[in-house]
Every structure is written in structure tokens, then in C-alpha cells.
């Protein structure tokens, strides 16, 4: 009996070993190391001295840190709710289509989501090019002039947000369509028999039943957009005048450009803590939903 248990345990150990060893090496250890580094004055490569909370205090005195926090928040504000609403709106339109038309619409809306970020930014840099970009016709229509959007501190962040919504919306759309398909058709038929209008149907049936998916999309988006880096780096490099500088970019700058591994890690810890907090809130929220 005990020998059978031992073979069982041995098999289990053999099976989990590759994952666990990889996990400990490239995941758990780096998490620990991130915290450890943040209390030292280490350069990117090499050892440093223990300096306690000095890196964190330094951040509090760094204007760029507050700029990055602010910009990250601003970006979250510009993307999370709009992206969710656009996703819901498009889903409401797409579910009404039938057959191949629906598949076609779904492909057109979803395709951007699977593209690499650098492809997305290259396409939009061309579309928004100040001299020859085709979107400048639209911009000119509203503002009366052509605008170099990524070189204008007022336009840069909203445009990065716009591109992000275009790029990532396919995923939200997908979740909403799945949610909408789960609503039984007889609810609507019964409501129609009672003479409900389309708006009433949406208000009384669709909205309450789609709310759990909406909450999921909102929180997933929140966590995702806090980690913004790629698009900003590729389109504006944080400029103009730091107007699009975000937290992850500060990590990159301190650690990889200025060779401050310790200070870079302190920023990473800050971001890490924010995201863990938000994730825990999400977990609670979704657990409440599940009950």
C-alpha cells in the first residue's frame, strides 16, 4: 500500500517537475529578485548595496514618476470604459446579422486583435501621417488643419488610446457576443408580445443579463491597460514632452537606458502591487458574480 502511494507520488513529481522547475527559475525567482533589487542601488547587471527604501523615496521626488503615474491613469481612463462600450455596441450590431454576413463582420472586427503590435503601429503611423495620411482628411474636416498627432502633447495620448481600442476591441466583442448568445430568445419573444420596444428590451433584458460579462470585460481591460508600453513606445516613445510617458516605460528607462537596475525594479514593484490589488478586486467581484 505504501509502495503504491510512493509510486503515485513519484509519477506526480516526474510529471510536475518540468513545469515547476521552469516556474521557479523564470517566474518565481524573478518575482523575488524584483523585490530584492528594488532595495539596492544595483546597476542593470551586477551587484549593489542594500539601501533600504531609498529608491522608493527617490521616486517620490522624481517628477517623471508622477507624470508616468498620471499618464498611465489617463490612458486607462481613455481606454477601459470606451473599449467596453464600443465592444458592447458592436456586439449588439453583429449578433443581429445572420449566417455568412455575421461571420464576415466578425472577421473584419476581430482581425486587428491578432496582429502584432508593431504591425498595428506601422499601419496607423501611415494612416495618420501628417502630410499623406488618409485620416488627415477627417482630422482636417473637424479642426481645419492637419495635425502631426504623435508630436502634439494634446493629441498624442488620445490617439494612442484610439489605436489601442481599434487593436484590442475584437476580444471584447467576442466575449460580448458569447454573452448575448446565451440570452434565451424566448425572453425577447415574450417581451415583444407584451408590446415592449427595442429600448425597453435592451434596458430590461439585455443589460441586466449582459452585466456579468460587462464586469468581466471592464476588469480584464483595467488590468491589461495598466501594463501599457508597446504602443506608446513604438508610436511616441513617451513624448512629446513626456505627455505619453507611462510606468512601464519608466521601468525601461531606469533599468535599460540609465543602468539603474534597482530604481527600475522599484518602479516595477509599484506597478506589480497596483496590478495585484486590481486583480484581487476582480477575483472578489467575479466570485460574487459566480454565487
Amino acid at each position, binding site marked *: 500500500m505504501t509502495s503504491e502511494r510512493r509510486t*503515485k*507520488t513519484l*509519477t*506526480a513529481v516526474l*510529471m*510536475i517537475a*518540468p*513545469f*515547476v522547475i521552469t*516556474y521557479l*527559475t*523564470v*517566474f518565481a525567482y*524573478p*518575482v523575488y*529578485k524584483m523585490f530584492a*533589487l528594488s532595495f539596492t542601488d544595483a546597476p542593470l*547587471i551586477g551587484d549593489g548595496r542594500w539601501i533600504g527604501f531609498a529608491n522608493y523615496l527617490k521616486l517620490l521626488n522624481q517628477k517623471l514618476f508622477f507624470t508616468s503615474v498620471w499618464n498611465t491613469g489617463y490612458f486607462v481612463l481613455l481606454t477601459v470604459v470606451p473599449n467596453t462600450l464600443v465592444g458592447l455596441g458592436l456586439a449588439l450590431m453583429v449578433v*443581429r446579422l445572420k449566417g455568412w454576413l455575421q461571420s*464576415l*463582420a466578425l*472577421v*473584419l*472586427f*476581430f*482581425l486587428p486583435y*491578432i*496582429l*502584432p*503590435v*508593431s*504591425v498595428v503601429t*506601422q*499601419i496607423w*503611423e*501611415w494612416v495618420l*501621417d501628417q*502630410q*499623406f495620411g*488618409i485620416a488627415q482628411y477627417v482630422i482636417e474636416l473637424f479642426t481645419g488643419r492637419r495635425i502631426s498627432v504623435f508630436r502634439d502633447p494634446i493629441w498624442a495620448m488620445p490617439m494612442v488610446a484610439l489605436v489601442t481600442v*481599434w487593436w484590442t476591441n475584437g*476580444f471584447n466583442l*467576442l466575449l460580448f457576443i*458569447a454573452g448575448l448568445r446565451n440570452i434565451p430568445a424566448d425572453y425577447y419573444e415574450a417581451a415583444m408580445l407584451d408590446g415592449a420596444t427595442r429600448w425597453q428590451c435592451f434596458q430590461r433584458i439585455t443589460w441586466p443579463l449582459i452585466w456579468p460579462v460587462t464586469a*468581466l470585460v471592464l476588469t*480584464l481591460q483595467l488590468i491589461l491597460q495598466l501594463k501599457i508600453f508597446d504602443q506608446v513606445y*513604438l508610436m511616441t516613445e513617451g513624448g512629446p514632452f513626456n505627455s505619453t510617458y507611462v510606468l512601464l516605460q519608466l521601468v*525601461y528607462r531606469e*533599468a*535599460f537606458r540609465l543602468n539603474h537596475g534597482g530604481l*527600475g*525594479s522599484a518602479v*516595477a514593484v509599484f*506597478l506589480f502591487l497596483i*496590478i*495585484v490589488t486590481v*486583480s*484581487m478586486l476582480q*477575483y472578489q467581484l*467575479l466570485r460574487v458574480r459566480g454565487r
Partner: protein
Amino acid sequence: MQRKSVGNILLLVLTLCVACMWAFPLYWAVVTSIKPEQEVVTKTTFIPDVFNFSAYYFALFETNLASWYVNSLVTSITVTVVVILISVMCAYALSQIVFPGRRLLYGIILASFMVPSQALVVSQFVLMYRFGLINTWGGIILPQLIVPVVVIVYKQFFDSVPKELREAAKLDGCGDFQILFRLYLPLNWGITTALAIITYIMAWNAFLWPFLVTNSEEMMTVTVGITQVDDAFGVKYARDMAVAILAALPVALAYLLFQKRVTQALMLSSGIKG
């Protein structure tokens, strides 16, 4: 009834218009890529007068695109195979074998969801440096191998396989490795393809980590490499678009061929069963 169908048709037209507008930047990129460079900036034509593939010729033969393709293919395929392999074994053990610490392990894997891998780039870079893996395929691959959600999805699927199946196989003298690879994996083949395709797409598209860990142009992946074309040759939009389209092709094709699987995997990984 008449009014309603008019409304429906209007809505249909509206939806298709919005869909076309949404996809317009993609169309515009394709059209731009097959124009001669000069025409790109002199006139706005929605259908090119002549098809000109010189931008593609440039992209294929005068950039490092070929080596970026090799790097991307090797690293994304390796990531996909290894992620699936180590996750499926771990999930099988978690689901089917009683061993000390399994609840703890499962809890840790669930909790890892919350850890943003982007925050780990500094310490992972230091680690890869210590391993001597900066600017190598190994350095690109290693930190991408932990994808907790794959383990969790597999575990849930294995949990729902009837226990009798495993018992019967045991009686026939099969070991757990045989049961996993001969029975459980084939039974869940659909979910394996779904997870593999989505892992492949994510690995192909990864930007931040490959960008940090490669420093010579020959070692870059496609996603990182194409951002270098600009710098070296100045802005030439037909070329840029041709390069971008070639970079997107492997994922766009994977998606178009396996649409259902891609969407299924995404729903599973977000917690909605597809």
C-alpha cells in the same frame, strides 16, 4: 411588420458600413504596399492603377526579414510545444493523481494569474544575462514558457473525463504517462489545438521581451525587427506596409484557418466556456 424589416435592413447596412470602416486601415495598408513608392505620396487612389510588387521585393531581399522569420518561427514553435507539453503533464498530475502539496501547487498556479510578466523584465533580463542567454533563441524562449492559464484549462478538462476511463486503462496495465499521452490527450485534441494556436499567435506577437533580450538585428524576431526598417532606410510607406503585411501574414493565416479554435481558446482563457 413592414417597418420592422426596413429597420432590420438599415441596421444590417449600418453594421456592414462600420465593419468596413473598421477594417479600412488594413485594406489601406495592403493597397499602399502594392503601389510604387512615388504614387503613395502623390495621389490618393483606392484601387491602384498598376500592381507593383517592388516594395515586397525590397522587404524580402534587402532587409533581414528572412532571418527574423527564422527567429520568430523557431522561438514561437518551441514556446508552443514546450508550453503545451509541460502544462499538460502538470495539469494531468493535478487532476488525476493524489500527491502531497497538490492543492498548494494549484493555488500557486491560480495566483500567478495576477503577476504581470511585464513587471519582471528587469530581473528576468539579469537572470538571462547570468545564463549567458542574451541575444540567443534560448533567451527569447525561456521567460515565455510559463503560461498558467494553459495548466488551468487543461486541468478543468481532465477533471471532467470520467474516472472509469483511467481505472480501466490502469487495469490494462497502462502507466500514467501512457494514459495521458495515449488516452487523455487524444480525447482533448480539440482543446490542445486551440491552446496551441493561441500560444503560437501570442508568442509570434510578443514584443517587449524579445525587444529587450535581443540587441543585434540578426537575432530579432519579426515583430521587433520590422521596427528597425524605418530607422535604416528613412520613411518609405510602401516598403513599411509590405514589411508589416509580411510580418502579420503567419498570424493572420493561422487565425483565418482556425477561427473557431482561436475564439474557443480565448473564451476559455478568459473564464467563459466556449
